């Protein structure tokens, strides 16, 4: 049957199972928008294309399905790029469709022309320019396959306006021919045997669980592995949720703002089992002093990550679920009482320094807000954070039990991520309780999406943790730049009035006693609610490994510290 390119876009999306797309129309994508009305797909009109990209990303992270965003040529496409790079760094399966000027004027600096495939080359897993309608269906089909196969990632398809308008015989290819696309392979018997041997010999093993646990759906397989081997588990930021934090062998987060005892465990382990994580500089600190006593087993789907930062003894280049299901049955049941006792001792010291166990004199501290949000929501919400201090406090104090319940920009650290990503997450999982946790700085970067939230009538709750500073930068200035607060004190709008302008009910909380009641009030109410928490201005995230510092030498919260008034 003859179809226009515009119709083919939607025919393909429907066949891929897409039910929701995020986008913003414009000249070069207009034919596709015109055809949209005839197809059963919900379109979410954003207020800025960056929001569309984060929504598609949040949708993908919350559901595991491919998220889709659409924009026009030129500025529409360039506005997507921050979101595309965010999805790239965190391996989020996403497809971006952009309109392009007519193929006849490509390369002439036509109105709203930008070399989008050129711009996005380094921030996509793959991209393609479609100048001929006959290539459109195949290119879109390939985009979805590439986005979700192996290590997932963003794929961009740039479609010339004349290719959207032209007609061709529509044929949706069931299968694609992509001989160069890396397909995950199972681990070899030799690799498994060498890994098993190291595990059998270990006395102080430690699992480092990353985003790969969640991406490959390996939570149960990891529970089985831990049950068999008795190895405790440390989580990367993006690994949070992949292993229940209530599990007796779950230590918590590692790295720059991980618990000191967790980092100490890494430095004292004799075997690190790196599962679906990539030894990012935020988790290793100084590589020269990193885990010197440990053998390392790296289970990683992407061969280019193996040996990139840390030399490993055994690598299983494989999907994590496949690898664990093959590996665990080969292992004998172990318990590591002495190792666990040592960890418990270190943990006790960490606990005594925890701000939760200090006098707070009624002042509102951000860690209290996150802790109380955790208890008030029963630890069961999908929390979508922005980037900065509140993000680290969320990771420290909100204990996640299930995969895909913490959605956060790890690799790129994109401020402005939270609100749009939460909109995407809510559309992916309408039944879930979704909370935005953002700072006053990041929230203002994409707060225009409050209008999207209202237009789509979505029930997303918003916690703005307002300390009047770009807090994490201020913290670095305090620690490393002699408290010279260059460009970090920040004036914010009246967030309660701002929410009101969008028709969103809002409250301001300044005392700890009001946190839980306000959160419960918000939860009881259908539809969005914004709560601004005015917190201590100069609190810092402890403990901290300074960038490039030794993992074993963290800046700790002073034992008898009084938080600066």
């Amino acid at each position: 049957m003859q179809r226009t390119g515009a119709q083919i876009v939607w025919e393909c999306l429907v066949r891929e199972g897409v039910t929701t797309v995020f986008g913003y129309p414009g000249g070069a994508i207009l034919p596709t928008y015109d055809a949209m009305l005839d197809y059963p797909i919900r379109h979410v009109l954003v207020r800025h294309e960056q929001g569309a990209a984060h929504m598609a990303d949040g949708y993908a992270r919350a559901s595991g399905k491919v998220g889709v965003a659409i924009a026009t040529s030129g500025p529409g496409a360039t506005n997507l790029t921050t979101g595309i790079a965010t999805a790239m760094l965190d391996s989020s399966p996403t497809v971006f469709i952009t309109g392009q000027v007519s193929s006849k004027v490509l390369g002439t600096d036509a109105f709203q022309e930008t070399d989008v495939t050129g711009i996005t080359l380094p921030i996509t897993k793959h991209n393609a320019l479609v100048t001929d309608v006959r290539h459109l269906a195949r290119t879109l089909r390939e985009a979805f396959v590439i986005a979700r196969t192996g290590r997932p990632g963003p794929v961009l398809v740039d479609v010339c306006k004349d290719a959207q308008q032209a007609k061709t015989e529509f044929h949706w290819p069931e299968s694609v021919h992509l001989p160069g696309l890396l397909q995950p392979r199972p681990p070899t018997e030799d690799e498994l045997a060498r890994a098993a041997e190291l595990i059998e010999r270990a006395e102080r093993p430690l699992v480092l669980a990353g985003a790969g646990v969640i991406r490959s759906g390996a939570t149960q397989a990891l529970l089985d592995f831990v049950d068999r081997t008795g190895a405790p588990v440390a989580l990367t930021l993006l690994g949070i949720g992949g292993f229940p934090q209530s599990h007796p062998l779950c230590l918590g987060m590692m790295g720059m703002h991980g618990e000191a005892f967790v980092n100490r465990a890494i430095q004292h382990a004799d075997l690190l089992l790196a599962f679906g994580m990539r030894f990012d500089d935020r988790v290793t600190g100084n590589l020269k002093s990193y885990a010197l006593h440990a053998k390392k087993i790296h289970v990683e789907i992407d061969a280019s990550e193996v040996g990139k930062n840390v030399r490993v003894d055994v690598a299983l280049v494989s999907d994590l679920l496949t690898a664990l299901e093959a590996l665990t049955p080969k292992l004998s049941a172990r318990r590591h009482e002495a190792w666990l006792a040592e960890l418990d001792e270190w943990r006790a010291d960490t606990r005594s320094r925890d701000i939760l166990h200090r006098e707070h004199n009624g002042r509102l501290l951000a860690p209290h807000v996150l802790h109380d949000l955790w208890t008030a929501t029963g630890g069961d919400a999908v929390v979508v954070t922005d980037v900065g201090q509140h993000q680290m406090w969320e990771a420290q104090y909100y204990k996640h039990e299930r995969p895909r319940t913490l959605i956060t920009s790890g690799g790129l650290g994109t401020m402005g991520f939270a609100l749009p990503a939460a909109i995407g997450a809510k559309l992916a999982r309408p039944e879930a309780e979704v909370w935005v946790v953002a700072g006053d700085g990041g929230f203002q970067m994409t707060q225009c999406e409050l209008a999207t939230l209202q237009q789509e009538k979505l029930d997303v709750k918003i916690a703005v943790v307002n300390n009047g500073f770009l807090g994490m930068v201020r913290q670095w200035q305090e620690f490393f730049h002699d408290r010279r607060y260059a460009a970090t004190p920040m004036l914010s709008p009246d967030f309660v009035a701002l929410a009101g302008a969008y028709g969103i009910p809002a409250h301001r909380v300044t005392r700890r006693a009001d946190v839980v009641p306000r959160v419960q009030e918000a939860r009881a109410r259908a539809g969005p609610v914004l709560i601004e928490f005015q917190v201590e201005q100069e609190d810092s995230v402890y403990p901290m490994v300074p960038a490039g510092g030794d993992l074993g030498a963290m800046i700790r919260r002073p034992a008898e510290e009084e938080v600066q008034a």
Partner: protein
Amino acid sequence: MKHTLVARVADQPGVLNRVASLFRRRAFNIESLTVGHTETSELSRMTIVVDTARVPAHIVAANLRKLVPVMDVTDVTHMPTVDRDLALIRVRCRPAERAELASLVEIFRGRIVDVADKSVIVEVTGDEEKVGGLVELLRPRGILEMVRTGKVAMLRGAAATAPPAS
């Protein structure tokens, strides 16, 4: 150290750009890169000589392999290969010196392919070492212009450098 990677890539627009972009953003150091047609019309073949002082060859190869149009990558550095580099060298040469220069070039299985009043163009093919050797010998005479293709390589014997694309 230098490693030689052979990559078979889909013969489609933009592939060279993808490879170059990868090397740029990962700060991999290319010594030379050649690309040309192969026995299969859909495939091109790249021979890439890369400096691996900073990043090991297997990481470079694994990153190349992640590009969707790249079918396979083989590190042939430690394999028996036939490798060839081709150079065109314009050398200062008075008419009276031509015969002597021709016999020198002959030792390297090179030849004079163009003659002008005060210079000639020498063509030489061989492994990089041999081509480099001739270049050094010609340098004192005055090299006015030179172009080298960079290395291409193929495994010796019956083994194919890369498995057939599936």
